[in-house]
């Protein structure tokens, strides 16, 4: 990866973070923590790895199973040129396509509706399976949250993807370690998650989810794996990029005030 390309991706991620904060300030509610933790991964997917044109039936697909992180996806799609900034600023407002959680019907750019945790990986598998049936090459990426792994349906999906040999499916865990009631470790520990997924016959890669080079390397490594799906454990920081939000669970589902937003944006731009 050349330095120039990395620099441009970093700038993209920075712009996305700024827009997330602006949207949430305007909306007055929403989930900054898990949006900011997912930003670098989304940047790598949409601005480098994915073959993405929403009108192309053979496009790579991205399923945001942790639907509460959708401000990050809206912001990414603005920067990618598929949504207008003016429209995403109507997030969570009446008559907007920018629903609080992804709504595929109102906004087909969302590959699926999501927000009830634990259901997205099954849907992503259906998409990957369709590609296999048709012998098409597109890939399906699914981002899940860590607390989400506590849902039973996740484990049904963890079992079936290897059975169907879905090497065109990549599940990315945004492991930011926090959920509403506290640290994931305390609420309901998911560890040892790498060993669990390995024993379920997934190819497991562990990375720093804010290191762009590591993210891209993992995504390319997944391309080379045959006959089994890939599980990328991306260690992330909730609220990444804003010092007063980083690692603070209280910022899971609370929007910043105007003043906090300005402070956050200043930090992101200086970071």
């Amino acid at each position: 990866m050349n330095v120039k390309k990395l620099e441009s991706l970093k700038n993209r991620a920075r712009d996305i973070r700024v827009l997330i904060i602006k949207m949430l300030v305007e909306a007055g509610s929403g989930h900054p923590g898990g949006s900011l933790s997912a930003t670098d991964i989304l940047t790598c997917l949409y601005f480098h790895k994915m073959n993405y044109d929403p009108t192309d039936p053979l496009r790579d697909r991205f399923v945001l199973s942790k639907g509460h992180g959708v401000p990050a996806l809206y912001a990414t799609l603005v920067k990618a040129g598929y949504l207008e900034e003016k429209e995403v600023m109507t997030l969570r407002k009446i008559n907007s396509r920018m629903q609080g959680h992804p709504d595929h019907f109102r906004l087909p750019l969302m590959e699926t509706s999501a927000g009830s945790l634990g259901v997205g990986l099954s849907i992503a598998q259906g998409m990957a399976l369709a590609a296999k049936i048709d012998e098409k090459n597109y890939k399906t990426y699914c981002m899940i949250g860590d607390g989400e792994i506590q849902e039973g349906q996740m484990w049904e999906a963890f079992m079936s993807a290897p059975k169907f040999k879905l090497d065109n499916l990549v599940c990315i865990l945004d492991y930011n370690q926090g959920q509403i009631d506290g640290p994931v470790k305390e609420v309901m520990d998911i560890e040892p998650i790498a060993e669990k997924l390995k024993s379920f016959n997934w190819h497991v890669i562990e990375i720093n989810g804010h290191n762009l080079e590591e993210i891209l390397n993992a995504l390319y490594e997944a391309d080379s794996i045959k006959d089994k799906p890939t599980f990328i454990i991306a260690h992330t920081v909730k609220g990444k990029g804003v010092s007063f939000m980083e690692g603070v669970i209280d910022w899971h589902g609370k929007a910043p005030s105007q003043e906090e937003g300005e402070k956050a944006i200043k930090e992101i731009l200086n970071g």
Partner: protein
Amino acid sequence: MAKATRAAFGEAILELGEKDKDLIVLDADLSKSTQTQKFSKKFPHRWFEVGIAEANMIGIGAGLALAGKKPFVCSFACFLIGRFETIRISLAYNRANVKMVGTHCGIGIGEDGYTQMSLEDIACMRSLPEMSIVQPADEIETKQCIEYMLQHKGPVYIRLTRQALEDVHTLRYKFQFGKGDVLKEGKDVALLATGGVVYNTLQAAEELEKLGVKATVVNIHTIKPLDKELIFNLSKKIEKFVTVEDHNIYGGLGGAVAEALSEQTPRKLLRIGVNDVYAESGTPEDVYKKYGLDAEGIFSKIKKFLQK
């Protein structure tokens, strides 16, 4: 000849699978019961065994549909509706083009008892906007209904029986989605039945006729969208209404007809079904007798209702 609607479904997809390569079938360890096994042998690359994991099956079905396929997800009706959250978000809210096939509906399954008897499924499905709900009454109707549903776009719930059903239609029959199917006309009472009990209702109507009571009998194969126009037209000339279904009397056909009537022309309504109780094991015949869904039970309830 009497045939279970699940068996008719199994035959229908076998034929339709030839014509439509996008027809995919998923099952959750019940392929012998849901009758998708023959399809699995004939089209092994378009049939997927998901194991005892219905939520995952429904989700995978939604994903397949969002990628352009036409999946049928099949299990006992009770196990599908038990995964309501996934149905609600992955399937319904997405308007995913998935055909849910719930077999072994109602108390008609007999010996297995309450845990396998879906008696709430219609009520739950009715609460989902844009969900279509169909329940065919015999083999002929099932085959036409499945063929129709394959080309229909959007989420569909198809409710089928374990038990064999006598024919109520001839081969001349034409299934019309969303339209009530009038089997018999009479001015004294309107009997609206759905699914496996349509035949029993016709038999009850014959008994009523012996008493000089002329009944209109309508097979409501499409419970949602309900044929409100037909109900409204009937309510203009008929004073008393009866619904018959193998489902809880709350929220199913009885609920739907009660709502439609009270919105238009309120009429006296008797809802025959499972009377808000947990049913029990027994031979299908004994269970239908005890809970009053056999022809005799239906007849005597209607008789009492008309005497009031």
